[in-house]
């Protein structure tokens, strides 16, 4: 569904991603894990079209089987093609209500009925958001904000949903909940690209994983393979 071929990303003076190649098959959960500064976020920001200096190829194949090159495109193109992204740090708009945040996620859509029913769908996925639908985003707790961010990403009815550090700053119980949701979203037919620091939780849900270290893929394999690999721990704690 999404093929990334020798991608390079430059940030200020930094060569953040140094030629990584990644493949995301339709219907799977793929995760990029690695310590801070490994280049995970830069990779998905490149897919979204948020960074300027990008080399390499990012090819997205939509539902209709047409392949589109994503490098050099804007985020709008990405959304229209059927990719949604929940950015790092959740980035809930604090002054908008929960419902408005969700509506913003559905910005490109014009089918009011569909939007209403999707909002309802998100609420049934996250009942706590329904209770808070008129509350401002900024008043939600961290976990609720994360749920809202995931829900917001679902609102554009994407085929591929990219989640940047959804467990960041969440208490362990909530982390578990977030990963359960990811599994559920996936089982409903959405492809998921997950960027995580929380390696073990990510590996447990992922079909396939790439471990990044200073801009390179150092290890890849299925979730189970990597879970039992001692090098994973080394990549984090310096052996």
């Amino acid at each position, binding site marked *: 569904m999404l093929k990334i071929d020798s991608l390079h990303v430059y940030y200020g*003076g*930094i*060569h*953040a991603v140094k030629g990584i190649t990644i493949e995301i098959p339709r219907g799977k959960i793929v995760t990029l894990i690695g*310590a*801070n*500064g490994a280049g995970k976020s830069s990779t998905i920001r490149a897919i979204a079209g948020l960074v300027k200096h990008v080399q390499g190829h990012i090819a997205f194949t939509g539902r209709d089987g047409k392949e589109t090159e994503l490098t050099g495109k804007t985020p709008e193109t990405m959304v229209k093609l059927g990719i949604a992204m929940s950015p790092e740090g959740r980035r809930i708009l604090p002054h908008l209500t929960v419902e408005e945040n969700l509506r913003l996620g559905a910005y490109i859509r014009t089918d009011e009925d569909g939007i209403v029913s999707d909002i309802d769908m998100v609420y049934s996925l996250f009942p706590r958001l329904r209770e808070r639908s008129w509350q401002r985003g900024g008043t939600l707790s961290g976990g609720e904000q994360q749920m809202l961010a995931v829900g917001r990403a679902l609102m554009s009815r994407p085929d591929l949903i990219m989640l940047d*550090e959804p*467990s*960041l*700053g969440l208490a*362990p119980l909530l*982390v*578990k909940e977030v990963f359960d949701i990811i599994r559920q979203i996936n089982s409903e037919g959405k492809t998921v690209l997950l960027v995580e*620091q*929380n*390696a*073990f*939780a*990510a590996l*447990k849900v992922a079909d396939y994983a790439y471990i990044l270290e*200073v801009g390179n893929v150092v290890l890849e394999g299925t979730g189970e393979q990597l*879970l039992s690999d001692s090098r994973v*721990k080394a990549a*984090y*704690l*310096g*052996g």
Partner: protein
Amino acid sequence: MTTHAERPCALETQHLTIRFGGLTAVSDLNLAVPHGSIVGLIGPNGAGKTTAFNIITGFYRPTEGKVLFYGEDITGRLPHLVCKTGISRTFQNIRLFSNETVLQNVMIGCHVRQKSEWWMAPLMLPLFNREEKAIRERSYHLLESIGLLPYANEISNSLPYGAQRRLEIARALATEPRFLLLDEPAAGMNPQESLELMGFIRALRKEYDLTILLIEHDMKVVMGVCEYIWVLDYGVLIAEGGPQAIQSNPKVIEAYLGEEVTADA
């Protein structure tokens, strides 16, 4: 722990707490950094490490608690006065004076110890000229010792990334600090550069008689260079100890790798 407490304390924080609105970014942080040591402050993203640096260097005023520097209470002292006291730092996202040359960056660091006044410049007072000359020479000397002399007249933002990090340290050294805070000095460096950085940090301590506190994500660097480590998570100190103890501390592993490791390990 015993060797740790024997030397006099360079920097100490007591019950340091800061709240932004409802969020407690740093909560009851107690650090005691012995004179002459290299120590680390680590933790996952958003744990409050940089916030702690910002409090120590006077950019934030703590909600509660104290910062002591060689026994002197410097809590809430303005940043430029903190620098004068002898604490200098680098920044996570390099903050060089980007339009200035490498040499000028270091000379700016020398300013805090400069005795002459601005109005002496147009008067060409001999005292002033002598001091300017001395600053220039000292800056060249610093650049030489740090290996940046060939770049002296380059504009600082044209330097390679690693060199910019070193220049930031050189600039911090120009303020003649006794205590150096390094915020992710290895960020964006490859393993080879990180290795060199470790040697460099050790050499710095020796040559300039410094005490060094660093924040770092690259665990190879932290474990390789720090004698003692504090681990923050959600603004709370969850562990402290030597590198070995930290590496095998289940709480730390959990903070970094996620909770499920305890079941798997």
